[in-house]
């Protein structure tokens, strides 16, 4: 068994727009190990969702390499991909649009089984669906409902159930709780946690919510404008962020204590457009430590002594 479940190397996803080349994901490399929760955090529009979809091969990568369990899946055709689709699941952000409004829960959940020929007879399907609904904290009777008859939390449970139907090894979670009420969010997070333990899953969790990522992840990657700027163990990164962007990002989290004074705005300026991004280090226009080299040369991810990776000229 391969310890590295997913290895991504120099992955790029470019779009041609009227204003120029849009670099949504630019030369991203990382590894996800079996059994861990790999968190990816970044502001809205930094390319998180594009990255997750490209790794899943829902979008065609422009360049780079995606290796799943030792096999290069970057250029596989849809037919060859089918066996890998069974091993990877995705849960989307908005359960209201990720479930087909014209299908009952039974139909939605039976599709994965039928596609991968895991169950044929009606009784068999029914049994598996009841089983998964129970696991999701839903009742058997929910299988005859349409999505609009369910609450937001119930819909997201169905969406998770669909991803789990084929017993995948890894679940890609694209902000699975951000469209839900706070009280429901906690329940879904608990559910995801217990399912992970029960089924020995690996999670790739993306979110813009730093606190959430801190709670759920084992390792964290920080993304800025299509690039990963820092990867490392959760505790190392949170206790001593190295990259100025990571530092600013973590500092921008409000502390629930009225006595704590905020002495300065942690991150100044706006995120530049991913169309024709800044030369050199993409963060340099907003970085307080920017040097000459930062404007000219793009820093690469480099391993530090404590095992984490940082892409910043301050540490090279």
């Amino acid at each position, binding site marked *: 068994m391969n310890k590295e479940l997913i290895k991504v190397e120099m992955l790029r996803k470019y779009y041609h727009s009227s204003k120029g080349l849009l670099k949504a994901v630019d030369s991203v490399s990382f590894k996800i190990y079996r059994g861990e929760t790999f968190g990816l955090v970044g502001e809205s529009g930094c390319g998180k969702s594009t990255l997750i979809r490209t790794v899943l091969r829902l979008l065609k990568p422009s360049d780079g390499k995606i290796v799943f369990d030792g096999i290069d899946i970057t250029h596989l055709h849809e037919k060859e991909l089918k066996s890998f689709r069974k091993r990877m699941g995705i849960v989307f952000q908005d359960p209201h649009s990720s479930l087909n409004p014209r299908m009952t829960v039974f139909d939605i959940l039976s*599709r994965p089984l039928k596609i991968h020929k895991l169950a044929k007879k009606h009784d068999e399907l029914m049994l598996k669906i009841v089983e998964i609904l129970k696991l999701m904290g839903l009742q058997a009777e929910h299988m005859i409902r349409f999505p609009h008859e369910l609450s937001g939390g119930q819909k997201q449970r169905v969406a998770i159930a669909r991803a789990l139907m084929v017993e995948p090894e890894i679940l890609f979670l694209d902000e699975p709780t951000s469209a839900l009420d706070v009280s429901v969010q906690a329940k879904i997070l608990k559910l995801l946690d217990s399912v992970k333990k029960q089924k020995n899953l690996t999670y790739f969790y993306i979110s813009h919510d730093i606190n959430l990522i801190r709670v759920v992840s084992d390792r964290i990657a920080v993304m800025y404008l299509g690039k990963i700027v820092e990867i490392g163990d959760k505790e190392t990164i949170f206790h001593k962020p190295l990259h100025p962007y990571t530092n600013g990002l973590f500092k921008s989290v409000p502390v629930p204590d009225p006595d704590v004074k905020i002495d300065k705005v942690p991150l100044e300026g706006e995120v530049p457009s991913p169309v024709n991004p800044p030369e050199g280090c993409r963060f340099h226009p907003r970085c307080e430590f920017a040097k000459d080299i930062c404007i000219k040369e793009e820093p690469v991810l480099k391993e530090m002594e404590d095992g984490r990776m940082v892409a910043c000229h301050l540490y090279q």
Partner: protein
Amino acid sequence: MISEDISYEQLKEEIRKLKRKRSSQANLVWKRFTKNKLALIGFIMVSIIIFMAIFAPLIAPYDPYKTSPLERFKPPSKEHLLGTDALGRDVFSRLIYGSRIALEIGILIVLFEGIIGISLGLVSGYFGGIVDKLIMWLVDVLRSFPIVVLALAIAGVLGQGILNVVIALGTVGWTSYARMVRSKVLTIKELEYIEAAKSIGESNLAIIFRHVLPNVLSTAIVMVCLMMPTALIASATLSFLGLGVQPPTADWGSIIAEGRRYLLKAPWISTSAGFFIMFTVLGFNFIGDGLRDALDPTSRRN
């Protein structure tokens, strides 16, 4: 037992309940439809025409093809409700039989153009790229002609007869469906349930039929009702111009054409045929509008 707390029998009972509920959803659409006065009137109007078409031999007082030279140009009276024509045939009976031809042609045209238009619209919207460009280019080219002129040209080449009318009008008509369906598919395609279907390994064909088509269907049904009048008028126009259904077949368009020569002497021939066309067209239009509002409550004007 399927699990601890619910048996297979209980589940079946639940499914039965659901089916009842689903029919109640259909009831809801029906209620909204009938609440709309115009829609209800349209439904009654079309029902009358369909009833006439089915029971034509029972309703028609005379044989629509029996000529009687002594009875020529009789104005409307008790014996001949809508008078007689140049050959002494009963106009009312001919119009009743005419509803058969009208509905037959109308349904055939709508089926023909609907099937072509919806499939091409689905393909065009879903796959995009060069396929989309080609199909839309064809749509633009066909639509740049005045519909009747193009249909005339095609009917002229193909010759007369019902099937050729259907082909001539369908060749132009599918473009409306294709455009409508394509624009709908473009929005559906971006929704996450399509990505979700891809992520579980669903094939393109399955995505189109299982996920896209069902969500386009209600729009398509409305479209069919709204296209029916266009088809009816266009086929009547072709008959009127002598390229459609041929005399002596009792067809509304050709009845108008025959009566045109005696418009001053026997105005009842053309006008009553015109009224029948208008009646049917209006009926389908009302139904189409009503269905659109009933199926999509958010677009209601009131």
